[in-house]
């Protein structure tokens, strides 16, 4: 690495011939950050492959079981609400990749020290978080909607022999689009937790613990009236109602109400993350 260049060339007209930096520039910068690390590509590839492959596999296995008269409970679910079955099986696991990516998008800023470079460039701090949220949510929205629709059509083809589903049936389009919306909000939910916890392992464990474990455990409260409310108001449970066609028997919130609750929780966590970003030493 021999450098003979005169340092005086550090000064340059290029640096002065510039437009005033605005929020658009920040979004562009966040896009550069997101696309230039491998974790983004890997997480999204895993999300797409796992979701689509498992959707196909679960649907195929269940249809096969139905045709041969086995696994009556699972097959009953498929027959009762095929669209929900299609949208929640593969995506149920695939969403974990989104959780991981959402948390990492924020925590790697801290673990790698890039947060210092980011905040030196944008000392007001909050625009960094805002631009990151907008860019990341837009990315997940586009990929999430594509995966939702492809999942739906894969599932539709597989379950065709036993039950007919189509986008023209009532509420089906809402559920399919809703699955992509759910993933978008989930990605921000994970990002918000990343901004609060700041450590990759802790943030990932927290998000996945909330989505998989706590959400499931709250099912145990469904024999109490208040327990159903607690269950329904839990962020990811409430958010997932938008992907259902037929409400669960004990469901308290409507699909859009549930989605609004999920958005509310996410906004609350993001606000807390923003407050701490502003307050804490970086």
């Amino acid at each position, binding site marked *: *690495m*021999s450098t003979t260049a005169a340092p005086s060339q*550090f000064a340059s007209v290029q640096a002065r011939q*510039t437009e005033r930096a605005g929020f658009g520039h920040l979004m*562009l910068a966040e896009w550069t950050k997101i696309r230039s690390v*491998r974790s983004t590509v890997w997480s999204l590839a895993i999300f797409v492959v796992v979701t689509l492959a498992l959707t196909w596999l679960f649907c195929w296995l269940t249809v096969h079981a139905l045709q041969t008269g086995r696994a009556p409970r699972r097959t009953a679910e498929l027959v009762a609400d095929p669209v929900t079955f299609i949208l929640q099986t593969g995506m149920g696991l695939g969403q974990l990749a989104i959780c991981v990516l959402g948390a990492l998008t924020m925590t790697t800023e801290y673990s*790698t020290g890039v947060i210092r470079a980011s905040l030196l*460039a944008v000392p007001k701090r909050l625009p960094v978080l805002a631009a990151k949220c907008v860019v990341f949510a837009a990315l997940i929205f586009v990929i999430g909607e594509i995966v939702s629709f492809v999942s739906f059509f894969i599932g539709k083809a597989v379950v065709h022999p036993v039950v007919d589903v189509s986008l023209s049936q009532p509420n089906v389009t809402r559920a399919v689009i809703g699955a992509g919306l759910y993933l978008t909000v989930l990605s921000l939910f994970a990002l918000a937790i990343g901004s609060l916890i700041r450590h990759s392992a802790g943030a990932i464990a927290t998000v996945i613990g909330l989505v998989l474990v706590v959400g499931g455990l709250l099912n145990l409260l469904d024999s109490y009236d208040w327990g159903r409310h607690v269950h329904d108001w839990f962020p990811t449970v409430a958010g997932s109602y938008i992907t259902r066609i037929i409400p669960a028997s004990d469901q308290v919130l409507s699909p859009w109400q549930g989605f609004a609750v999920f958005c509310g929780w996410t906004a609350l966590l993001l606000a807390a993350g923003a407050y701490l970003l502003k307050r804490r030493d970086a």
Partner: protein
Amino acid sequence: MIEVRDLTKKFGSTLAVDHLSFTVQPGRVTGFLGPNGAGKSTTMRIILGLDHPTSGSATINGNPYADLPAPLRTVGALLEAKSVHSGRSARNHLLFLAQTQGLPSSRVDAMLDLVGLRPVANKRAGTFSLGMSQRLGVAAAMLGDPQILLLDEPVNGLDPEGVLWIRNLMKHLASEGRTVLVSSHLMNEMAVTADHIIVIGRGRLLADAATEDVIARGSGQSVRVRTPDPERLTELITADGGRAVLTANGDNSNGAGQAPALLVTGTPASRVGELAASASVVLHELTPQLASLEDAFLELTADSLEFGHLESASARLQAAPAGLPSEPAQTTDGSIR
């Protein structure tokens, strides 16, 4: 210009920066010295808006860092702690920084060329050597062609070539009229780089003066002289008002044919040479001792070392006369001594 006014920073009950005030002027390299844990990095982080001060203020051209509209075009910083994603390429790291300031991507390539990283621009930064990482840090700092530069321990761990590169770069940037603040815990490094020195210890200001003055105010410069005729030279130096002592390795018993060495204080090297020439005394060596710079530093910081009293006590034992009357730490120390 960087202005720090009555700056205080507490981490819990630990006082990291203690009512610190100083000004960094453009057109010269200002060294920011202090032992490890003296509060140098914290002060720099507060100037850069990364840490919030407990009280007091730090401003850049009169404004807090956070109020700068495109900060990287006013201030460039090279922090000691790394701030690059190991999986991101050098180009993408610089590119996102450029984008936040509305700088064109051609500026990224220009910087990569200038620091010599163009050939590895698309390699992951995690694969870089320390020297290459520092170059990337310099490229990031210079991206917006800032008039003010803050460099935190920039030569730490670098090989001699890297040290020289950073040194020349800092001098050059200052000669262009930029404000350069560079921290170090090595007095000798600053002695060859900085025009002005700010010394802190335990978060408090110990000295703020031109480099020569800080050195001169130290224990006094010493000169090592080798001569086959130490007695005659000692006489001459003593007559001139200086002091010369035969050093241990100058003792003839272990000197394998080497001329004995004298350690001279109170008489500069040039005067020793003149005295020797006037009396036709042969000299084999005449070396101003840089060690006294470290002494000056140790003396200044003797009371403010973070690690217990051991170093403090030993430094006090070594400490030669004349402390710095203007320094509070030194005055209290004087009464103990």
